[in-house]
């Protein structure tokens, strides 16, 4: 297969990755786990767009994937084209939208500390004017300080962005291990049952995901 075909004809893998993230986050009640990062909060929020060909469904709300409409879309053969996610790692919360076909991020809100309005020292508005000795910085010094501050804010933002990307890459690697291996053929029936609203046997799914063949009836229980 040519490189261009591997890219263009397999963009659906991005949609399946979003589906798997949604499925796992729901199955494990908003808590995902990787070997590198341990457990962290992760769930779909704000918006999910599901499409099949030209037909699409856009669902908005605090937990858009939790409603009946989202699963109904899956049962009609649609897969997520983009989804909003919320991530909680330690005390830090991040939200973003992931677009499946290019794995591109939009609207990423980072838990930054630097560069916030509240970091600016308050003006001494109440102090008498004569009590305030104004320090006059020359233009070059001020410019240099502002430049240093913007550099520091940039490093912080990039550090947090790279942390998020690293986490997503590990999740993608874990997904690929399942998707490209034998486990996927055991996982798909479980996902199909989940889309139908059947109760899923989580332990059986974990065994299936980790490559241990299980019978379909063991992984799902009828409603």
């Amino acid at each position, binding site marked *: 297969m040519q490189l261009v075909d*591997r890219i263009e004809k397999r963009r659906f*893998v991005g949609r399946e990755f979003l589906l798997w993230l949604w499925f796992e986050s729901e199955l494990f009640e908003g808590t995902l786990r990787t070997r590198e990062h341990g457990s962290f909060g992760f769930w779909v929020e704000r918006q999910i767009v599901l499409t099949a060909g030209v037909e699409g469904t856009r669902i908005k709300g605090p937990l858009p994937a939790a409603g009946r409409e989202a699963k109904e879309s899956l049962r009609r053969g649609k897969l997520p084209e983009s989804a909003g996610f919320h991530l909680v790692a330690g005390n830090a919360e991040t939200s973003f939208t992931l677009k499946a076909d290019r794995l*591109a991020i939009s*609207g990423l809100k980072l838990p930054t500390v630097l560069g916030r309005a509240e970091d600016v020292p308050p003006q001494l508005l109440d102090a008498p004017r004569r009590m305030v000795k104004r320090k006059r910085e020359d233009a070059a010094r001020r410019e240099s300080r502002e430049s240093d501050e913007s*550099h520091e*804010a940039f490093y912080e933002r990039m550090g947090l962005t790279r942390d998020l990307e690293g986490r997503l890459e590990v999740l993608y*690697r874990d997904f690929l291990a399942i998707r*490209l291996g034998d486990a*996927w053929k055991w996982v798909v029936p479980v996902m199909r049952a989940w889309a139908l609203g059947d109760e899923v046997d989580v332990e059986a799914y974990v065994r299936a995901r980790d490559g241990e063949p299980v019978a379909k009836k063991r992984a799902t229980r009828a409603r």
Partner: protein
Amino acid sequence: MPALKGSLTYSRFFVNGPLPTSFQEKFLKSIRLRSMKPLEPDDEVTERSGWCRLGEPMETELSFEDLFYNSYLNVGFRTDRWMIPGPLLRTKLREAESAYLQKRGRERLSRKEKTELKDLVSKKLRRQLAPVTRMTDVSWSLDEGIVRFFSHAPKQAAMLEGLFVKTFALKLVPEAPYTLAARLQPEPDLAPGWDALEPTDLAEEEGVA
């Protein structure tokens, strides 16, 4: 300025190839060579891209400090484009065509004359307008070999790829499910499984296409 404040919307590109030796000097020189040159009304091109300072589209004199933030190369990607409103162009063109025909006592213009007249009117209108300027932040993480381009616009991305390869002699590979997979799990291990993939469908087996 998405790279410096506010929420982030970006696409990632993987840089294909190693950095050259003394890359900072080389890159500074080649970025300066391709810094943004403003569009002039008489230019043949109607669109031009070039580098500028991050977040400062009008700052095209670039120093080392403007570009290098420790292990990042940060730069603005600026595109200028002449945008003449269609109704204005059509009106002025009609006026010019009428005047031209009247002056020569003719009733019709040849195709060549029409083209020349349109070019003339466009250039005249450009002198009364300013080109539309668009700037997108670009942040190249040199140690990761990743470029973050703060836009999702495909046309802008294609133009960035062109200018990037001219400036740095390195090709950009846009992130996609396959390119990220290949980065995480290099070939030949990846290829056989990847090529055999078929789309997953959770559709109900009966009654739904």
